[in-house]
């Protein structure tokens, strides 16, 4: 269960990055905090990747992976 949840959490930044050009509020000429919205979105989800992997780490997914019994 934890393992599946770990994969799901880790997939969130991937979904966010690939959604970038399809979100009208992101792919816009408007600025967020004085910066291009796409750039801010990219930086936020780069931070979000660390957050997602930290959550995955907390869920203990690594204990299964460390054994190296499965890919």
């Amino acid at each position, binding site marked *: 269960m934890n393992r599946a949840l770990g994969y799901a959490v880790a997939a969130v930044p991937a979904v966010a990055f690939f959604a970038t050009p399809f979100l009208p509020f992101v792919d816009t000429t408007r600025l967020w905090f004085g910066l291009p919205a*796409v750039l801010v979105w990219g930086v936020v989800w780069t931070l979000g990747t660390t957050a997602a992997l930290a959550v995955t780490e907390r869920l203990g997914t690594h204990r299964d992976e460390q054994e190296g019994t499965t890919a």
Partner: protein
Amino acid sequence: MNSTMVIALAGMLGLALLGASGRRARARAHDLGDWTVGGRSFSTLTSWFLQAGEFFTTFSFLGFAGLAFSGGVAAVYALGYLALGLIPMYFLAPRFWKLGRDHGYVTQADFFTERFRSPLLGKVVAVVGAVFLLPYLQLQITGLGVIVQLATGSHSGAQLSMVLATALTAAFVLLAGIRGIARAAYAKDVLMVGALVLLLVAVPLGVSGGFGGLFSGIQHTRPELLTLRQDGLDATWFCCAMLISSIGTGFNTMPHLWPALLSARSGRALQKNYVWLPLYQIALAIPIVIGFAGALVLPRGTAPNDALLTMAGHALPGWLVGVVAVAAAGAAMVPSAAIVMGISSLVSHNLLPRGLGGRARLRANHATVLVAAGLALLLGLTRPDLLANLLLLTFGGLAQLAPATLAGLRAEVRLGAAPALLGIVTGVAVLGWLTFGGVDLGSVDAGLVALVPNIAVTWAAHLLLRQPAPLPDPAAEPATSRP
């Protein structure tokens, strides 16, 4: 020779000396395994710098700023692919590392040889890796020449620096192997982050209205740079570029990244690094901001790759431009060192006859370092475009190793060597045809398209060539099932 040039050359020498100081005692220096993977004893911190150091290349300095200069927010794909590449590696790296420790891998090709029990497949992967890495090595050396030329304004100085940096890089790699790369990576990463922060402060100050005025200026004069709806740099391009690049990094298909992974003390050390490495990659947003500043200030005809250092030249005094040039040169030297090590270990460890003794193999390895570095330098100086076409294939070509790599990670590898080999060869051949055959794919990445026949051929060959399951032996049935 101006002060910028003196600082740039002195900085390169300093980086090489730092790298050479990683040399081990004589007894260990004759061991190819220790030279390549450092006895698999690197701490989490050392692994961090090695891995981070190889993500930031001359392309990070010049290319991302250049892409932002000409294509605006399209350059954000780099943030995406680097972060996304780390997610699969968080899960897979401990498995790669454990297999490497258990079976004594030194190279990527060792993985294919052992997992598929096929020296032939290992040799093919070694050839593919070495051939595709050579243009990548040349790119770093040529990029270093561009950096020094832009920083100093001297063409002859640029050529001198290319020769010097190549010689220094080869020297410290030969002397200290991966330990030398790790030491140089410490200094290079600190310098590089310092230089980028300096540029982030200084360059927007030179723009009318400062940092706040920079993007409102873009909004009024070049609004197309703020969206992913440009010709050739649209949503399809963005997603394809991000996907193929993250497949390459996420499934560990680049041969020169293997020594850094295999040299770690444990799989957990790597895994912890993958959690935090994305934070470091945020620094890549800085060249993108500088590229935007260039788009606002520089003439449209400016070569995109010149944007960052031209803006640095406008904003900083000569000696600070020299410091930025040293950081950028480090971004060429450290990845070059890893690439040349990747090529030499594939050749000496996987392509030379098995019967060769340890010392002879190490001598052959060191000769390969010199030949590869010399060849890349010679082509960079005399025929800079000769390998450019091959470079088009590098990332997409190495990504063709991803399906077999994934199959090889299973505890019990069910895919045979022949289907894996057929898939790789098909993928690379289709990629070559798509790239050089004049096939118009629009903004879809050719490497991504080539993965489709790669996987199809692998799967079809797997079904055709697999051994039929043995019929049940009636004599072996349990006694309880008999009447």
